[in-house]
């Protein structure tokens, strides 16, 4: 899409003050129009459980629960595994995203669908699939065992489960960011003698950095919330493989306080990370949209 000449685009960015479009914007901007009303039920539905959770847990109880060893362990395991996961995802996802962003090849659609697949799979399916591939009796199980690697029930399994489920969020967003870099700029850089690495490092990456960053944060938030694949592939052992979502689930039946505390922490962390994306990219987004 960026191959189009730039002239018409810049003219559409500066709308004629007399064009009817402005008035449409005004109508949509009114405080209580029909769209607000139609949108309200879903908004209330989405917000209410979060608000309820926050109301239900008092700050003092929250702090008191934070000091409990099982809660602390779950938070530590979650932070450690998700940080490793996001490093793995960025390290291996960037080349894939770069390839998908620039190259056109036969079967690209297949590759893209494959990359997207984990986002629509139920995480429990992902867990079973990982078990079948990397478990002791799995496809690679024998080979891994010969190498002395036992993945099941280890933190490596937690990282794999998280990476499997969360990687598409990074790869897709980064690939779109790479693909949106102006082709003329790339051609200009190549004419100036930039090599493949230099092109990536000094032209493409700085331009696509907001997309890559937002993809990484989204991916991290998804890894933080990972439950189904983890409990199936990595099991549940406090201090080793029990992440926050697992502790919430196990705690729910017996000890609602643990579940509530961890839920609130998860919500705050997720909200903060999504907010971060919005804040850092929010101002760019409308321009990006207008330029499509």
């Amino acid at each position, binding site marked *: 899409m960026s191959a189009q000449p730039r002239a018409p685009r810049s003219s559409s960015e500066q709308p004629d003050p007399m064009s009817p479009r402005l008035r449409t914007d005004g109508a949509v901007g009114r405080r*209580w129009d*029909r769209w607000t009303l139609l949108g309200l039920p879903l908004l209330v539905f989405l917000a209410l459980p979060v608000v309820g959770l926050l109301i239900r847990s008092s700050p003092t109880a929250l702090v008191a629960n934070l000091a409990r060893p099982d809660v602390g362990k779950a938070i530590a395991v979650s932070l450690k595994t998700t940080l490793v996961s996001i490093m793995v995802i960025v390290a291996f996802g960037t080349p894939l995203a770069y390839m998908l962003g620039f190259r056109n090849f036969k079967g690209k659609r297949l590759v893209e669908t494959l990359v997207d697949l984990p986002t629509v799979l139920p995480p429990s399916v992902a867990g079973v699939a990982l078990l079948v591939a990397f478990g002791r009796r799995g496809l690679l199980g024998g080979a891994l065992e010969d190498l002395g690697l036992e993945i099941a029930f280890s933190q490596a399994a937690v990282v794999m489960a998280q990476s499997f489920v969360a990687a598409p969020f990074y790869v897709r967003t980064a690939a779109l960011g790479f693909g949106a870099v102006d082709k003329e700029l790339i051609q200009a850089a190549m004419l100036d003698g930039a090599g493949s690495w230099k092109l990536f490092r000094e032209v493409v990456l700085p331009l696509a950095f907001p997309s890559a960053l937002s993809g990484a944060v989204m991916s991290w938030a998804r890894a933080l919330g990972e439950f189904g694949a983890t409990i199936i592939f990595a099991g549940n052992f406090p201090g080793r493989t029990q992440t926050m979502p697992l502790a919430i689930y196990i705690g729910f039946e017996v000890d609602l306080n643990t579940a509530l505390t961890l839920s609130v922490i998860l919500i705050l962390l997720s909200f903060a990370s999504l907010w971060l994306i919005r804040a850092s990219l929010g101002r760019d987004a409308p321009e990006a949209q207008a330029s499509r």
Partner: protein
Amino acid sequence: MLAQHAFGAASRYSKPGSYHTSHIRLPLLGCILISLADSVISSLGVLTYLECTPLLPGLTRLGPAGKLGKVSRRWGVDRGWSPASEGTRVGRRPFPTALTVIWLALSACTGLGTNPVPVGRGALTVFAAASLAEPFTEIADAFESQHPDVDVALNFAGSQQLVQQIVQGASADVFASANRAQMDVVVQEGRIAAAEVQDFAHNRLVVIIPTDNPGHLEDLRDLARPDLKVVVAAPEVPAGAYALAFLDLAVASADLSPEYRVGVLSNVVSHEENVRAVLSKVALAEADAGIVYASDAAGEPRVRMIEIPQSMNPEIMYPIAVLLDAPEAGLALTFVEFVRSTSGAAILLRHGFTPAGE
């Protein structure tokens, strides 16, 4: 970004003129929406149950008498719509009709949400613990073939979930629980008379290993050998609590040393969220051993059992009872008697349970 692209294209085609053509339908739509919102708000009474009362004043203000109501009246004015020019619509007053429709739709929805209420003659609703799924399906079939005019509806879930459903008013005739504690909750809630409760089966714990035995376990003693991968149910789950009880009994017995408990627990690599997950992990040979109910192991060809002696096996009783407000009380009693009869016992035995009489 593709989505943004598409959206951008769409908004380019939508002219301000087309935005106005549908405004006549708006009042009706608004009424439907408001009545829907009203129903939603009234259903928020659930919030009081969740102790979220601080939230309610803010929400009720959104009701028809509050902001939404005013806004809907203002709409017409904003859009240049006046009652005089659209007299017929005002006279029709779609509000009550819409309200009725929504009300009916919502009632239908809530009807779907709860458990099936027996419809017609001879429909029996049985709530049974998830571990009873296989024997009770078979028992229900046998019961139906003896009573051709009876339809048995089975609802399987974790005993705790079933108790929650019953306590919250679900209609049921018979409740079969996986332990006494859950049954006692229902008794305390006044839905079952304590005298009605009777044990119909016991279960026992067994150690299971994959058929090819990657951990080379021969007997119970081997479970404490270092470098084994053992999975158990989480201590929060009944099966996990029983597994811990087994270790306590084992240590108390003369056969096994006090270090046995420590040894087994240090081999535990995962506290699974339910007992069937323990079975799956061992069946897939991801773990070297696990502790499950004999009834779970009975149906799984990929695992072998190592028996736990009776002296170390915690008592696991399955109680059954007819609910006090059972819609089909007579039929329910017949069903309970059938479960406890020799034919019921034979089915239970086949699925790894020990019938209560034996």
